[in-house]
């Protein structure tokens, strides 16, 4: 019998500590998710024993008007805040990348603040802000009544976009911009023809990030939402307060599938370079 050669320096999967580690990661990361999804098909009110397959809870889900409304709110808020965050974030990144001006370091630091400030503090701050400083008018028609939440979401997600876009721009060859100018393009034409195409993957990545951040944000939304502006995570929380029913499982499953699909589509749209967005630039 031929003995297997000892594992090579890069054959991590053939060493037992690595295998153990990988298994642990797999279990703790994915087992809860899979259990959650599996039990959404469980034919029982309680989430403990498997009683048989059913789609009842999905049926219920799609007829629960309160949950559907919350879901629609969430999608609307996510869409609006994504558009605003990408625009603001990209511009902030461009300013910080392109120009030198007094207070640049301060602005750079201030921009990272929403990323590091604990969410609960942001939530309380938003609550106080919209209650005292700038009360958002009540009783506005949908979707204007979501304004406060959208503003709150933009304020914590646009720094993420800025960070991603800036990282991408770091790999931009400034000579490319100069080449466009040299060949006769004005400033705006240069941005449209050379800078934006380079930035594009990071814009998509940033948009995805902003969308998912907004869609699943609970803490900040909880403090800014009113009785008429319940979002999906807030609604799920209120359902869980009574008991974790398979309905909650079903709702979560829908959300997971939706996010995964969106990500897959976005990656597909960008082609193979997307996976390395912000890490490479062009080949030498």
């Amino acid at each position, binding site marked *: 019998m031929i003995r297997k050669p000892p594992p090579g320096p890069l054959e991590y999967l053939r060493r037992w500590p690595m295998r153990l580690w990988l298994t642990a990661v797999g279990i703790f990361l994915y087992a809860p998710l899979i259990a959650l999804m599996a039990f959404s098909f469980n034919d029982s009110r309680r989430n403990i024993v498997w009683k048989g397959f059913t789609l009842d809870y999905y049926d219920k889900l799609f007829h629960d008007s309160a949950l559907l409304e919350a879901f629609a709110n969430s999608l609307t808020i996510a869409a609006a805040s994504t558009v605003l965050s990408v625009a603001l974030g990209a511009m902030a990144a461009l300013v910080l990348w392109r120009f030198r001006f007094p207070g640049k370091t301060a602005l750079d630091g201030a921009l990272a603040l929403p990323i590091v400030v604990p969410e609960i503090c942001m939530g309380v701050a938003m609550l106080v802000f919209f209650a005292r400083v700038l009360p958002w008018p009540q009783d506005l028609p949908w979707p204007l009544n979501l304004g406060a939440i959208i503003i709150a979401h933009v304020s914590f997600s646009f720094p993420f976009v800025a960070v991603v876009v800036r990282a991408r721009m770091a790999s931009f060859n400034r000579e490319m911009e*100069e080449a466009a100018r040299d060949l006769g393009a004005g400033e705006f034409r240069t941005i449209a023809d050379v800078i934006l195409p380079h930035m594009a993957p990071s814009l998509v990545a940033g948009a995805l990030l902003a969308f998912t951040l907004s869609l699943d944000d609970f803490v900040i939304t909880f403090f800014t939402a009113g009785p008429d502006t319940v979002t999906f995570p807030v609604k799920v929380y209120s359902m869980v307060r009574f008991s974790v029913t398979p309905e909650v499982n079903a709702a979560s499953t829908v959300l997971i599938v939706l996010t995964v699909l969106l990500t897959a589509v976005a990656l597909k749209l960008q082609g193979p370079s997307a996976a390395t967005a912000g890490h490479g630039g062009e080949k030498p």
Partner: protein
Amino acid sequence: MSQAKPIITFENVTKRFGKLAAVDDVSLTVNEGEFFALLGPSGCGKTTLLRMLAGFEVPTEGRILIDGQDVSNTPPNKRPINMVFQSYAVFPHMTVADNVAYGLVVDKVAKAERDRRVEEALSLVQLDGLGGRKPDQLSGGQRQRVALARALVKRPRVLLLDEPLSALDAKLRAQMRTELCTLQEKVGITFIMVTHDQDEALALASRCAVMNKGVLQQVASPNDLYEFPSSRFVADFIGQVNLFEGVLAVDEQDHAVIRAPDLPVDLFLDHGVTGARGATLWAAIRPEKIELHKKTGETPPNLGDAPAGTNAVAGVIRHEAYLGGSSTYEVEIAGGRRIKVQRSNLTRWDQEDFALGETVWLCWHACSPAVLLS
């Protein structure tokens, strides 16, 4: 060439970054149809000078004229000048043809004419049929050709090249050198090149400007630059050189003698020197202008144009490097000074094989040393 017609003029141009003068009071004229090289060590201001010409930097003082018109404050997109960047800066998201066409699209040239000119430019740089490729499917040399075509397609008055050959491997570099020369003759456009590589400048340019620390040192043809350097910096920067500091002992109409403390013998020159008697000056002798002879006796060889006892010195070979076409030696003379000597390998079986540690005679013609006053 008939009458030299100036196309670019720098008038007392200075560029300061903070306190540092990257370019210090440079006045320079480039004529129509020249292949001009800006040469100097890194940080000497040559790139800043080129960037001011392209319009990416504005001079702090002085003026830049193109065809007699002041363009000091004209933005880069309004200048009749195009540039080939060091990194080539080919747009990665466009095809080769789109890259080349970009300048024409921006200028709103009609589609039919655009296609024709793109075709023409691509064939000029021998990229026919590759118009549909993306830049990441091209080699480094091909990408440089795209950058060349993209700049030439706009038919600029002047083409700027920033370190055009620095990113290519040795073989390709030699090939591109010849091609750049041919290309320039074919299109007849004035080329201005920035380089830190003296071989490149000597091989390509019809005229070179040597810069150091922002100051223009000498503007001359490659031949004059090498054989008649104006200062120690130029002599040392262009090629290899043996520099001897000394004083002028004799200065007549038809000959002069320099006494250098490093040399045990006098340096005899077959021409007069316009310098003050007793003043410090420098004699520069190129390694290939020193002859190496076997030491067979105590009488030094005499090349016939200098009195006995001058222009010849004995030494010991301390270092040898075989370079194929030639060999270089370092010979230590009395007093410890080492002298660089280069010798062509004229035959395959060298009868006079010089070995390490051998004592030899070094001698040179009376016309070989270049006298430098600074």
